[in-house]
């Protein structure tokens, strides 16, 4: 198959999954996980959008994201600086969370009936 008289060049692309993507794909379409907190994890807008995508398909009610933002400096007190994630995306995460919470409550009440 290979020509013995020449150099053959094969370029193989290997796509490695990244941490945040694996977490997002983990809870994609699950019903159990309700709260996920990733404060001070190196997440920017593009990663947050991947998490939001999974969130819309799952039951997650709260997703806490801030990078270089909230840090616990002493018990019950937080120091807040400029978050590294697009504010519109955070608002959307909040909205999806509320919708999921409503759906979860409706499902729980149906189960009780």
């Amino acid at each position, binding site marked *: 198959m290979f020509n013995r008289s020449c150099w053959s060049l094969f370029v*193989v692309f290997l796509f490695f999954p990244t941490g945040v993507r694996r977490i997002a794909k983990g809870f994609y379409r699950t019903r159990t996980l309700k709260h996920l907190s990733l404060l001070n994890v190196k997440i920017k807008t593009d990663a947050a959008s991947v998490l939001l995508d999974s969130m819309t398909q799952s039951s997650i009610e709260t997703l806490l994201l801030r990078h270089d933002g909230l840090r616990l400096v002493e*018990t019950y007190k937080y120091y807040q600086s400029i978050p590294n994630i697009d504010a519109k995306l955070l608002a959307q995460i909040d909205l999806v969370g509320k919708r999921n919470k409503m759906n979860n409550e409706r499902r729980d009440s149906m189960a009780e009936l």
Partner: protein
Amino acid sequence: MHRLLLLALLGTTVCATAHPVPACPYHAKDETSALAILTSTTKCSFLSISFNPTESTIENIARALKTTTSLTKSFYLSPDFVVANDHDHRATTLIRAMAEHPALPITQLGLWFESKASTTTRSSTDALMASLQTLLATTTVRIKGISIQNQAMDTSHVRVWAHILQQYSKLRTLSLHLRSIETNATDSAAFQDRDAAISLLCETLGEKTTRLKSLTLEPDSVTGSLGVGPLSSQSLGHSLTTNPGTLVNLDLKGVFSWHSDDLTNIFNGIQHSGRGVLSRLVLTNTTLASNTEAIESLHRLLRSDNGFFSNLILDDASKLSYAGKGSFCFIVLLYCCS
């Protein structure tokens, strides 16, 4: 009209004096109000000593604690209560008084008092642990929850807690602050000793007699390390699998020194816990990283949708990141046939 007003005022005064017991839950700011709650015939579910009592005040509160029937649930020593030095036995006097009660009604004990760092040493915590051991060895005691803040436990105290958990099966919640271990010194004797001690504590969670529902361990500073290593992760993973029906909340902060294999033990332990009930897992300051077995085991755990695991807190995971649509690499194969 004036007579009516006077009567109304008098009525209010009479009502006020007829109910001298402060409203409950109560944060007592002085001896009188604390004693009023403890000696009252009206039941109260929460009392906090929110002042710094003198020696004589402590004697009076201790006397009231020995016989109280009114305080039905929680007793707290707030951070306003400041232990001055190693010879200050006020907090332990109260704990020993509780041990003398013939049928102590208190079920939650919050020891949130401050200790002056410059004048208190390890022997102060030793004395506290000794008094708690005495209290929990008393057969009539039915304390279900203990929370100790502002009083950092050493490695030897972690071992004592493991022993207490083996002996005293009524405890449902335990929250402790541990003295930080240097993060980078995983080869040091201190680190290995701490790992072994926490491992012992985790082993007790696997015993069927233990009914602990919530365990919180955190270092004494927000950037400090608990000093957990391979031994503790193996024990915890094993306990989660062997005794899955009890632990609901596991809160471990400052777990810098748990690496991929250790985190895999924990995530696999939860996933393989069958009819487990663990619903909240807090692992802060982890070294959870992309392209490791740990992230894969977490992925599998989340996908398993086991019906009970609902809260995951991975704050300050230093190596967890996202690199666009998957990081890629080129492997260039140069095939030379000549």
